[in-house]
């Protein structure tokens, strides 16, 4: 074992998580390497510093406040979530949607949305195909254009999509984002949304970093949020949410 390999084992050694053979190799290396031995000692001391941090003091009124919060929760009537539809399997419907969309594009002034308040000033419900065309038109690019491929961090999502077990199936979800002041929303499976985001990224040069979060309540969904977006200079693109 060399020094680099030994340092990869520091945590596992500290937590006694090494296999018997790994532990033997690790100890042999430390016995013969004063640098790694000292590093491991410092490592252990720093971990002990972290683990010895005191817990925050308990609020004696916590339970009372919680009872109050639970009572308040019971009194809350949740507003129904409007479900913006629609993937359109039939060409005729898609065609009509595109026509409607084109009409909207003519009417919609391209102003910067109100980012601070988060108000949705204009909302368009479109099919994936129509949205692609809409975005392509706004960006002034075509599918055949050779544009820079942007990175899309989907590995975690793909892990889950590929993983068997209780988290399947992933339900239909919703993808929303802004394009030049208009909020565009699409529903479908995560794979559809990822394809769509890839399309947007490819066409615009925008970079989306997506964080994958399992829905803790359902254990069957996912929530993907924008972490950071670099809007293309030609078009402002802001991913609002992507929820499944």
């Amino acid at each position, binding site marked *: 074992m060399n020094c680099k390999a030994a340092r990869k084992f520091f945590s*596992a050694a500290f937590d006694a998580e090494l296999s018997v053979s790994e532990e033997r190799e690790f100890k042999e290396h430390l016995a013969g390497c004063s640098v790694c031995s000292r590093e491991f000692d410092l490592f252990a001391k720093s971990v002990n510093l972290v683990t010895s*941090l005191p817990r925050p003091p308990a609020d004696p009124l916590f*339970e009372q406040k919680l009872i109050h919060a639970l009572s308040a929760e019971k009194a809350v009537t949740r507003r129904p979530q409007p479900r913006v539809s629609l993937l359109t399997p039939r060409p005729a419907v898609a065609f009509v949607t595109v026509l409607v969309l084109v009409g909207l594009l003519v009417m919609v002034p391209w102003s910067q949305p109100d980012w601070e308040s988060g108000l949705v000033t204009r909302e368009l419900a479109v099919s994936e195909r129509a949205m692609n065309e809409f975005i392509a038109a706004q960006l002034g690019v075509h599918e055949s254009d050779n544009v820079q491929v942007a990175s899309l961090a989907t590995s975690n999502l793909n892990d889950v999509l590929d993983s068997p077990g209780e988290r399947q199936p992933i339900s239909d979800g919703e993808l929303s984002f802004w394009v030049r002041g208009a909020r565009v929303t699409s529903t479908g499976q995560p794979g559809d949304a990822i394809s769509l985001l890839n399309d947007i990224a490819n066409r615009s040069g925008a970079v989306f970093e997506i964080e994958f979060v399992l829905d803790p309540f359902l254990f069957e969904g996912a929530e993907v949020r924008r972490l950071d977006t670099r809007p293309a200079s030609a078009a402002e693109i802001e991913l609002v949410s992507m929820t499944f």
Partner: protein
Amino acid sequence: MSDLDRRTDEELMNLCVEGSEEALGELVKRYKPRIVSVIYRYINDPIRAEEIAQEVFVRVWVHREKYRRTARFSTWIFTIALNLTKNEIRYRVRHSKVMSIEGLKEIGSNVGFFLKDRSRGPEEKLEERELQEVVGNAIASLPPKYRDAVVLRDIEGLSYEEVGEILSIPGGTVRSRINRGRLILKKKLEPYVSC
């Protein structure tokens, strides 16, 4: 006298599903300090950490019927806590120009609030307070994916398996993230442990 304190978390959760508020109370008793602690390590705001912890338990109650009986309760509640905490961080970042990692480090100075009185002299107390502040800031400044793993492992003492379940990452990734996070911390804390 109630036998709730002898029940497993999962049994208590099943009672919650049946509507037992006493079972929720027992879960609150067991998990409140840990949930508040893990949230606090992210946002370094003791009052807000308590509020978010309350929201965690409200969600546990409201969504109790969605809890899968095959899942471990601890991973479920920590997942809820982490998600709500990250929502809080996103909200702060979005609504405050200065609430970046630097901002988090800045409010990390609150960490001294949690000093235990161990009947030491004022100088020792001050040193301890400063050291805890340094450690708190170092944790707050970790890249999120390492911070998740380190906080769950070293602050909450969860097993590698539980950390993996909560973060939805495989065992090898858990191991490497914990190691990487701790190595970063070691580098930051070295001046304080090398003497």
